[in-house]
């Protein structure tokens, strides 16, 4: 072979720095713009006029001509900043949305380390890097990557590009759509974006600190009177995480709803005036039947409560059979309850069970005039280990010459009020979504 020339192209002294920018003139507005990732960038949206330029080739071609006002970005195009120890330059800015919920993305570049994505969603910043390795699909909607597990919570959704500014390495345009899925993990998420031609995975980790200041940018509100084609502050929300509202907001709405519940309970507490009747009943004696009173129910449908209270006793029970009989239609509603109280002594000491009150509630009683009839019968209860049944003389109550071991019973009928059960169910339903959201946020915050 003729050549064993050893011309070296291993440089001796370091070559001079190459320019990092390529200056071009916008064919539409004549503004001077710089291509910061020449050789990679394909599309550039002029920051002065909004026209879309093809910068893939040395000659810059105009694709779409626009004449928007110059826009202000919190992170200006070309700004340098250091994130996680890496110096990065702002190349481009995008606003994207899923079903109207929008967020912002900045494309950042370092000639030696490649591209990064800075995402701002509801004021929260995160840093994204595209993967060169594919995550591994596990069962269900889980993937693993770099030894960590990530799980998809929501169905894939369509992300649309709403606004573009600056330089990008693909032919980005407003209206462009990809199918996006987010896989959530501890302290990081994986975003998978697909279209007909490719699938891209990005690892996104939350960023703390003042990102805007790191790039020497201005915070929203600091620029007075600047003409804006794009809003200068965080755009209204989203990203998969905040799409359903953050927990504090939801709890606030839930609190307001609870307040309404209380108001409603008070509003519907009124009803027909209560009627009370007192009588005595003899344990193991004859049952007593009497009409407590007449109750007029005004509403088309309402709640009725029948409350019975008795004097004190032990180891007895009183069967209460209530009837509501409508005078005009002769319709009758029967409901039962009992007042019971037991006590005794066992190996753990003294025990008691029961109460001296019984309340029954009747739902949806139709309008009408009702007689409230009560049949009461008292019985003694005895068993090994229980004290003998006793009763306390009814101090303070009208004793109408009855035998001293009679039990005094007072029955009250009333209408209106709210069912406590309804209230608890409503409260549970109200706080279920924010509770779930909070659990979810706590889990993914680890």
């Amino acid at each position, binding site marked *: 072979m003729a050549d064993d020339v050893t011309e070296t192209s291993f440089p001796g002294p370091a070559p001079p720095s190459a320019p990092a920018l390529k200056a071009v003139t916008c064919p539409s507005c004549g503004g001077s713009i710089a291509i910061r990732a020449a050789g990679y960038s394909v599309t550039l949206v002029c920051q002065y006029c909004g026209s879309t330029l093809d910068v893939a080739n040395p000659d810059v071609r105009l694709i779409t001509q626009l004449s928007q006002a110059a826009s202000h970005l919190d992170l200006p195009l070309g700004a340098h900043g250091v994130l996680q120890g890496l110096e990065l330059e702002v190349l481009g800015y995008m606003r994207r949305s899923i079903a109207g919920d929008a967020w912002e993305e900045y494309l950042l570049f370092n000639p030696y380390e490649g591209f990064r994505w800075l995402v701002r969603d509801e004021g929260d910043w995160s840093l994204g890097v595209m993967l060169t390795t594919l995550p591994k699909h596990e069962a269900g909607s889980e993937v693993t990557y770099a030894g960590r597990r990530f799980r998809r919570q929501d169905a894939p959704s369509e992300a649309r590009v709403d606004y573009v500014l600056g330089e990008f390495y693909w032919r980005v345009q407003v209206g462009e759509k990809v199918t996006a899925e987010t896989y959530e993990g501890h302290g990081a998420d994986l975003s998978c974006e697909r279209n007909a031609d490719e699938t891209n995975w990005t690892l996104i980790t939350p960023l703390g600190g003042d990102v805007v200041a790191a790039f020497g940018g201005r915070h929203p509100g600091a620029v007075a009177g600047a003409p804006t084609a794009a809003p200068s502050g965080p755009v209204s929300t989203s990203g998969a995480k905040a799409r*359903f509202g953050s927990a504090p907001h939801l709890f606030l709405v839930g609190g307001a709803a609870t307040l309404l519940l209380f108001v409603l309970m008070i509003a519907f507490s009124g009803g027909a005036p209560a009627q009370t009747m007192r009588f005595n009943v003899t344990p193991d004696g004859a049952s007593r039947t009497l009409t407590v009173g007449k109750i007029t129910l005004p509403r088309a449908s309402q709640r009725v409560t029948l409350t019975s209270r008795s004097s004190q006793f032990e180891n007895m029970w009183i069967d209460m059979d209530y009837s509501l009989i409508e005078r005009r239609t002769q319709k009758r509603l029967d409901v039962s309850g009992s007042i019971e109280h037991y006590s005794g002594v066992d190996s753990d000491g003294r025990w008691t069970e029961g109460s001296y009150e019984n309340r029954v509630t009747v739902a*949806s009683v139709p309008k009408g005039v009702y007689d409230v009839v009560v049949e009461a019968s008292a019985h003694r209860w005895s068993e090994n280990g229980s004290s003998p049944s006793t009763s306390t003389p009814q101090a303070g109550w009208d004793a109408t010459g009855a035998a001293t071991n009679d039990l005094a019973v007072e029955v009250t009928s009333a209408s209106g009020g709210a069912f406590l059960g309804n209230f608890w169910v409503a409260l549970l339903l109200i706080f279920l979504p924010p509770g779930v959201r909070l659990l979810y946020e706590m889990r993914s915050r680890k």
Partner: protein
Amino acid sequence: MQTGAILYLVWCGLVVTGFAVASSSGSSPFATAGRGAMHSVGFYGPMHK
């Protein structure tokens, strides 16, 4: 506003409305008895004293 927050508002509205309707008509599954316990008295008649 986020669609999720609006959905939640609607949900709360539904729950509160449901509660209001139930309260105004005194309906509940938690009652000791309901209107279903109502029946015709037949020839027993009201029991007056």
